[in-house]
Structures are given as C-alpha cells and as structure tokens.
C-alpha cells in the first residue's frame, strides 16, 4: 500500500501557524513580486478567488471583504516543509518527497500490523499537533490511487468546512483498500483530475466521451498506448485498476541540475544592473553546488522580457556555455555567467527576470585530470577560499560576502531585488527575524 500526504493550502497554513490573527479570515499568498495568487485558504476559495489570478484585479473587493494577502515567504515555507517531511520519515519506512507540500509513503506490509485508516489518521493528527500544518492522507494500493484517495479526502474536508461545521472535523483520511471502494472512488473523480492526465490528454479523453476516472480505467490498453503517450498511459491505467507500476523513489542522489532565478522588482534596461542579478544568481548556484558536494559542466544564462507588454515574442533569451572543467567555484561561475550574459544581451529591451541553470552535475573533484587545462584549477587555496566564503555567509547571513559584480553602493537597494511588500518575517530561519511572543 501507498500513502500520499498532502498539506492543506500549504503556504496559507504556514502563515497561520505564526499569525493566529489570520485564523478564520481569507488568506492568499502572492507570487514573486506580489503578482498573482498562488495559494488560498479555504475562506479565500469560498470567496471565489481563483488560483493564478493577477492580484491587482481582485484586490479592492477582496480586501474590502476582510481578505489578507501575504507576499511569498519561501524561507518559512521551506522550513515548515522540512518539518513535515522529517516527521513523516519517522513514521513510514520510506518517504518520497514529491513536492514542497506532498509526500508519498511506502506502506508495504504495514496493513498486517496496523489498521491503516487509523494509522493514517494518527499521522495526520500528529503532523497537525507537531508542526501546526493541516494535512490530508490518501491510502491505496498504487500511487495513482493514493493520489486520488487524497483528493477525495480533501473534497470531503472542504465540504465539512463549507457547511459551517467545525473546521477539520472531516476525517481527512481516505483508504481505498478493496475493489468496491476503488470503483466507487473512481466514479467520483473527473478524468482531468487523475494524476498524470495532462491538459492535452484530458481534451482527447473528453472527445472520446471519457469523463470520469472509472471510465478511464475501463478503456483498452491498446487505446491508451495509442492516445495517452504509450507505455506511460498504459501504466496509468494499470495503476488506476490497482496494480502498482511505480514505487516510492527515495531521493538520496543529489539533483542532476539546479536553477537559481528571480523576477526583478522592477523592469531593468541597463546591462550592468542585469549583470548584478546574474552574478548574484551564479554565486548562489555555486553555494548550492558546494553544499551538495557537486560541480557543474554546463551553464545556461537566461534573461526574460515581460510577456504582458506590447513587444512580440520571443520573451526569453538564453546562452549555453560548456565549462572547460566541472567547477563549484563561485568566482569561475560568475566569470562565465558574465560572458554568457554579454553574448545574449539585447540592448534596448526591458527585462523582468534573469537566471542561471547548471547542468551536467558531477561529484566535485571527480574529473581531476581535466583541471590540468584550466587556468583556475580547483586548487586547495581556491577550495579554502570557497569554504571561507560559505562559512562567513553562514555565520553573518546570506550575502555578507559577495562577488564584486553582485554588490551595490552602500545603502542602495539592489535594482534587481524583489518586491515583497507584505512578507511575514522568516520566523524560523533568521535570528534577526525570529518569531516574537509577548509576555
């Protein structure tokens, strides 16, 4: 059996843990630069706010009705996610962290020793007690069905909420352990809500008259192979019928690529300003690499213009660079990033975002012989310098020591800094912003 734990309205719930005055009020969390609604509390959903809507369009009416908007606070959400996942790892034999607010649990063999519905309810209560985050749990013989069970648990929970009973009195757990229950559950879920059915597949299925998950489970394998992406589609059908085709993938290998990018707080037109942003992303990417003990061979530098202006596409420009040797050195990375930016710079355009992507990751020091040909070999002195840089930034806060290209004049705001006007403090991750309580 598999379990899927999904946090309810995760970002909004994180805000509420430390801001009890938000309890019972509509809460939305906005994307970078306070652009769009990316998370909604139950109350905000009940007001009819849609996911992804540009906030300025709904702001006046929403705030007049008592709604609160928070800028996204990823330091906080990341830490709360780490707490939830840590606890799940104490309870289940194997956990796959699927996203910031979702995790699969491998529960094989556990049904012999536990009443799984009771166990799942206990896990749910404990996560709420220990972290303050409400979650729902779906339990079923396959990951696809666990996902579906979770969806039903969420819907049941929301119905309870909207009929004005005590919040969270829905059990928050759905267990699908026999065929009868699975059949019933499949009939309740629309085909486009099945895990793995994308926008295009959904359109195809609708044309073929297939509207529910139950109907989807009934189509022939040949049809699925032909119309739903070959083997992938056939696997999805098997999983819907209760035959597991994928297991819980515990991530212990470091990631194969990493990306650092941000939208600017304002439109930038000068290359020097954009170069500052690119340098700061390259430096952060270097820091992440070193934290994972990895080095990168490929770098992509990209900059983007606004999709909402009068300019025709393209909106995104990128340059890919193959580095002479895999590196984790911030100075080398920022140097190459600068060259990449110079290569792709378009004068006269108005940029809103920049980023660095690193690929071809390998264990740092794995390709020593190549270093013979590089002027900035991974010398012990450079490794020490990077170690000192990381230690200083850890001790005095991110960005205490930076490469010159990413530094602004003293007291000047970074022109590429984000707008996050209504961000709550990083309650749990920064001494200077620590959660405060009255006494």
């Amino acid at each position: 059996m598999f379990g899927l734990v999904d946090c309810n309205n995760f970002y909004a719930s994180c805000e509420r843990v430390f801001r009890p005055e938000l309890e019972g009020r509509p809460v939305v969390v906005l994307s970078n630069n306070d652009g769009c609604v990316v998370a909604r509390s139950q109350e905000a959903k009940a007001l009819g706010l849609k996911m992804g809507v540009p906030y300025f369009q709904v702001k006046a009416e929403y705030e007049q009705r008592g709604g609160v908007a928070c800028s996204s606070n990823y330091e906080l959400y990341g830490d709360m996610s780490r707490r939830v996942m840590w606890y799940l790892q104490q309870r289940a034999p194997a956990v796959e962290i699927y996203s910031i607010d979702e995790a699969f649990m491998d529960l094989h063999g556990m049904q012999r020793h536990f009443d799984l519905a009771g166990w799942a309810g206990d896990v749910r209560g404990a996560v709420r007690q220990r972290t303050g985050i409400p979650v729902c749990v779906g339990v079923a013989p396959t990951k696809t069905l666990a996902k579906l069970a979770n969806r039903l648990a969420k819907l049941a929970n929301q119905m309870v909420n909207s009929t004005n009973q005590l919040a969270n009195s829905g059990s928050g757990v759905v267990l699908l352990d026999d065929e009868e229950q699975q059949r019933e559950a499949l009939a309740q879920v629309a085909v486009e809500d099945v895990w793995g059915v994308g926008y295009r597949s959904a359109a195809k299925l609708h044309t073929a008259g297939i509207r529910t998950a139950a109907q989807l489970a009934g189509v022939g394998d040949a049809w699925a192979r032909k119309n739903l992406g070959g083997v992938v589609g056939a696997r999805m059908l098997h999983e819907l019928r209760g035959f597991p085709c994928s297991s819980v993938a515990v991530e212990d290998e470091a990631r194969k690529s990493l990306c650092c990018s941000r939208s600017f707080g304002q439109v930038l037109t000068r290359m020097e300003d954009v170069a500052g942003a690119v340098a700061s992303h390259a430096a952060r990417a270097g820091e992440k690499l070193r934290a994972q003990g990895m080095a990168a061979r490929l770098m992509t530098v990209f900059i983007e213009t606004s999709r909402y202006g009068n300019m025709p596409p393209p909106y995104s420009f990128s340059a890919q660079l193959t580095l002479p040797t895999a590196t984790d050195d911030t100075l080398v990375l920022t140097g190459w990033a600068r060259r990449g930016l110079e290569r792709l710079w378009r004068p006269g355009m108005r940029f809103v975002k920049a980023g660095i992507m690193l690929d071809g990751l390998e264990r740092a020091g794995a390709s020593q012989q190549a270093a013979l040909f590089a002027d900035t070999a991974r010398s012990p002195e450079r490794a020490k310098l990077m170690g000192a840089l990381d230690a200083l930034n850890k001790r005095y806060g991110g960005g205490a020591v930076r490469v010159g290209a990413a530094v602004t004049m003293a007291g000047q705001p970074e022109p590429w800094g984000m707008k996050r006007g209504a961000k709550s403090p990083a309650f749990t991750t920064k001494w200077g912003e620590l959660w405060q309580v009255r006494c």
Partner: protein
Amino acid sequence: MDHVILLGKAYPLLSAPPLPMMNMLLSCGFPSPAADYESELVDLNRLMLRHPDASFLARAHGQSMTGAGIHDGDVLAVDRSMLAQDGDIVVACVEGEYTVKRLSQRVDSVALVAENPAYKPIVVRNADELRIFGVVVLVLHPLVTEGRRGLSYVRPQ
C-alpha cells in the same frame, strides 16, 4: 623585520566544529583509555530543538514572566510535541496574539498566570477555546550583551 605592531587578537573565523567531549584526554605512549569512548559531540540543537519538527525558537517580549526567569529579549525554545500540563509555561493564543504564561487548571476554568505581580491572570472560562501553541521548555538568557560577544546581528533591528 624590525618591529611588530600588535593589532589585536585574531579569532578563528571559520567556526570550530562542535566541542568533542572526550578528546582532551589524549596521552602519549599508552593508548588513550578514552579512545573507546569517543566521542559524543555536544550539540546544542539536541537540547534546544529536541524534536526537529516540533521545536520552535521565539524571542520573548515583555516583563510579565520575570518571576519565572524569562526576561525581555530572551530566546525561548517551544516544543509542540508535548501536551501542556497544569503548571507548564506555555505559548497560548489570546485574542489573536501569542502570549507566554503559566497554565493553571482551576475547577471550572483555565487561567494563564503571569509571574509578575503587576500583571493579572487571564481567565478562560471555556477551556476548549484556549489554543496552545506549545510548551516553553528552555530559556536562553544572555548574561553579557550580545554585541559584546560579537553577536550584534542576533537582535532584531
């Protein structure tokens, strides 16, 4: 070199690893009798953040708990994994705001009691309405200013 100017003491910037408890018992000649007992590291997180998922740090503000040794600016470790019991110091939610008080179970009510005679207890008639964030398990109280220890960044601006 003709002369030397003393600029001051240099401290190692790269933070030292956590203090090993037993390693100071090194001896020459004979193998150290402590060698077998190496070496539990003294990690303050294990004390302050006993439950990594459920432990939270908070900065105390105000004078109402001075009798319990909690002073303005102290750092509190709050644990959500334990159930609050009568007599515990807790972080509770009162009128939409978190406050630190001692929990006092009474016959027909619950009171949040200050540890400073200048503050009155807060009585909650319906115990179900009381939302408790967690139990305060430790206080970190500085005895010299944080600035003198080079920790000026620790205090909020």
